[in-house]
């Protein structure tokens, strides 16, 4: 922050500081709250969570069992966010095409562009980047699948594994020397995987109907392996989150639409 010279700059600094310290004063009691945290939910979950859902990891027992409606809304928010981002970025691309103004072309849109003629010339695209990301990508993908599929017994789950999957997809997209040599960094395939994963997610939520447990109900509840439902949902959500975040990043790097 530069030292203020005119009255207007001084006034701007004063109002900013006033706003920051006001919000600090308002939030101080919330942050320093010493009210005892209720233990009822923790005790209930510690007692019943494992037997109800079969998951050792109680967090996944909550977000794929007790509060699965929340997770459903969250996946919809992710879908809407991808749609919005794509809508805005597509408009940007059409603006660029209309004006064909190279001076105002932004680095993030065309810099790491996946199109063949641009990627050779960009200074940040070195051989080091291509070699390292191309080699590390499949390992990151494997780790992502591990985190995704073992979310019920260890820290992890669909969302976490999905984000690791997205980083693997981005690594592969950065490390590909030839365009289109790897289908997993192809935006069209990523979008298809995402939409199909969302459709399967909704169908799986309906599957509880046939066992008499209702929407969101666990169809395997009365069987020996109730945890199968959580593993299945983790896998679907991981695929959906991984492809949608990977797709957004690839589109921001200039691939895609």
């Amino acid at each position, binding site marked *: *922050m530069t030292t203020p010279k005119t009255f207007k700059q001084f006034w701007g600094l004063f109002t*900013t500081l006033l*706003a*920051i*310290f006001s*919000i*600090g004063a308002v*939030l*101080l009691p919330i*942050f*320093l*709250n010493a009210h*005892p*945290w209720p*233990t009822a*939910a*923790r005790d209930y*979950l*510690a007692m019943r*969570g*494992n037997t109800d859902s079969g998951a*050792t*990891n*109680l*967090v996944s*027992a*909550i*977000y794929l069992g007790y*509060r699965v409606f*929340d*997770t459903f809304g*969250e996946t919809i*928010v*992710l879908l*809407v*966010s*991808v749609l*919005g*981002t794509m809508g*805005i*970025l597509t*408009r*940007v691309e059409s*603006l*660029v095409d209309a004006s064909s103004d190279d001076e*105002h072309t*932004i680095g*993030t*849109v065309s810099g790491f562009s996946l199109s063949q003629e641009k990627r050779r010339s960009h200074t940040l695209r070195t051989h080091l980047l291509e070699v390292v990301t191309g080699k590390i990508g499949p390992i990151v993908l494997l780790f992502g699948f591990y985190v995704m599929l073992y979310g019920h*017994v*260890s*820290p992890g*789950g669909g*969302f976490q594994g999905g*984000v690791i999957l997205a980083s693997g997809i981005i690594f592969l997209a950065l490390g590909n020397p030839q365009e289109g040599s790897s289908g997993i960094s192809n935006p069209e395939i990523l979008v298809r995987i995402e939409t199909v994963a969302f459709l399967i997610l909704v169908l799986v939520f309906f599957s509880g109907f046939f066992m008499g447990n209702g929407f969101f109900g666990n169809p395997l509840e009365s069987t020996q392996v109730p945890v199968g439902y959580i593993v299945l949902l983790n896998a679907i959500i991981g695929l959906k*989150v991984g492809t949608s*975040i990977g797709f*957004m990043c690839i589109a*921001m790097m200039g691939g895609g639409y």
Partner: protein
Amino acid sequence: MVERILLLLLFMVGFWGIVGKKHIIKKIFGLNILNNAAVILFIVEGSRIGTNAPIMEQTGSSIVDPVPQALMLTAIVIGVCITALSLALAVHLYKISGSFDIDTIRLKVQDEA
């Protein structure tokens, strides 16, 4: 107590980034810092009644409350969505005005109006 004061400071740093900075990318950074301060506050609150991770490998141990952790999982994903949308909007504004500075953008909009 110390960690709570540090979290409040982190929150205020994020808020300063939003209201005090002129650069749009720095504003988005501030939004992320603010989001993370709220997430860590919930995790700290939930960890007041236990010490172990909520993974039921051994029974009878005092675990932290898993409910705030499951809620924060949602908050983190929503934060990613907000970041992506705001970055796309920033790119759009840059395309229109040629700048990330909000004063320049405002001047540009006033000129066009």
